[in-house]
């Protein structure tokens, strides 16, 4: 029996960029205005003849070798037995070292308290056998959630069938968030600015 490893798999061919996940997450977790635990990056792709919309939901990757946990001087950032990376706000001094260490920029600082927040895989739900809010609300069921190490779980079956790719796999951080169709989407020519929740985060170059 291998260790439990909670993870998420997102089928990019199903994501329509509706942002229902981002809204459900905010409601479930009371995330402050302008901060996000999960968000969708959207941009146009095309070859000139046909334009399509690429949508890439993002969140904390709950890395097995999490740099944020390594650099946290107070141990406020930690990893649970199920592989979920969490922040104990009571220990956080707000030094933001974890934010500098995270290659996914998945963490944010609360402007009022100075404490750092992030996706918890809805630990208050998932530790009770419920799905994270973003997964249960997804209108196209693009998000799968479960134990990556249990071959009988939905997520493990989907990963085995469709193949799961991690973001920045070459960094060797071993993320628990996988994507179906990631390399196809990222290999398509970008023909618009990249938007995050409707706001431009990277203008189109050229």
């Amino acid at each position, binding site marked *: 029996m291998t260790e439990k490893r909670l993870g998420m798999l997102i089928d990019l061919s199903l994501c329509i960029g509706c942002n229902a996940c981002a809204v459900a997450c905010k409601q479930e977790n009371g995330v402050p205005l302008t901060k996000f635990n999960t968000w969708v*990056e959207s941009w146009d792709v095309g070859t000139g003849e046909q334009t399509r919309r690429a949508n890439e939901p993002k969140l904390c990757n709950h890395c097995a070798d999490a*740099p944020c946990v*390594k*650099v*946290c*001087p*107070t*141990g*406020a950032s930690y990893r649970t037995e199920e592989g979920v990376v969490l922040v104990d*706000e*009571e*220990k*956080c*001094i*707000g*030094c*933001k*070292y974890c*934010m*500098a*260490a*995270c*290659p*996914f*920029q998945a963490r944010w*600082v609360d402007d009022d*308290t*100075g*404490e*750092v927040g992030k996706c918890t895989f809805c630990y208050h739900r998932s530790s009770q056998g419920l799905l994270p809010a973003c997964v249960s609300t997804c209108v196209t069921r693009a998000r799968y959630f479960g134990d990556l190490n249990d071959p009988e779980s939905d997520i493990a079956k989907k990963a085995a069938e469709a193949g799961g790719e991690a*973001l*920045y*796999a*070459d*960094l060797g*951080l071993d993320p628990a968030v996988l994507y179906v169709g990631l390399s196809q989407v990222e290999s398509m020519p970008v023909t618009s600015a*990249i938007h995050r929740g409707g706001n431009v*985060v*990277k203008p189109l170059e050229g």
Partner: protein
Amino acid sequence: MVWDGIIACYLFLAGLGAGAFALAALAGFVKPDATKLRLAGYLIAPIAVAVGTVLLMVDAKAGLMNPLRFFGLLANFSSVMAWGVVILILFMIVSVAALVIMLRKKSTPKALDIVGLVCAVAVAMYTGLLLGDAPGFPLWNPVVLPLLFLVSAVSSGFAAVLLAAHAGKTGEPEGLGFLKKTGLALPVLEAVLVVALLAVTASVGGSAGPAAAASVANLVSGPYAVAFWLGLVVVGLALPFCLELVRAAQAKKNPEAASSGMAIAGEACVLVGGFLLRYLVIMAAVPLVLF
């Protein structure tokens, strides 16, 4: 941007304090009677590091609002920051002890100076390693940055002490022969390391490649290019080097005529460059995401 000018100030002051102690200690080995200069160094060292540490705490808002949380800072020694806290505490203890002994006896025990020098090197290099251990920003190279910040710490610490010595017209810096060499060698060494940082960053490949290239472009030709070329390269490195050359030539002709005004100008330039180096390294760094 995760960090900003506050952290740049902290990195600058920590390095400056370390360098100031180093000059006071080294001067004690070769010319113990340069007491005013040495006292200036022992005085600047703990003050600069203490002010820097306070800035660090101000930036850590959650800790500032709940100060007891700072006692948890030694909980995780896989974090460079936890080691930094130990190093800063040791440096503060040694440098305050050296200051007190200097004030009382006008000299310091050699053993204390050696321990302090080790702590000073650790403080200076730790500020670079702190950034180097954050894989979110490919500009922060874990090998080059500690060396670059060490050299810059020596430069800026020396400059701060010499500025005080020249402004106070002590005449003591002229008695320290090694300063003629460091005044020329340090800017050259720092320039080489800046080039090395840019070259190493530009050669980063894989997922971090685009952000690394964008960071280099930010400095060399992007929004930080004026501060980089004019501020760091010209004012911070080239000008102090040239002023030192001119002063050396003057001193050869007539040792009495060597202008202390020129020395002060050069030292002020070094300080500007020292701060700008930290500021640019922090502000021009591009995170991996989206690039």
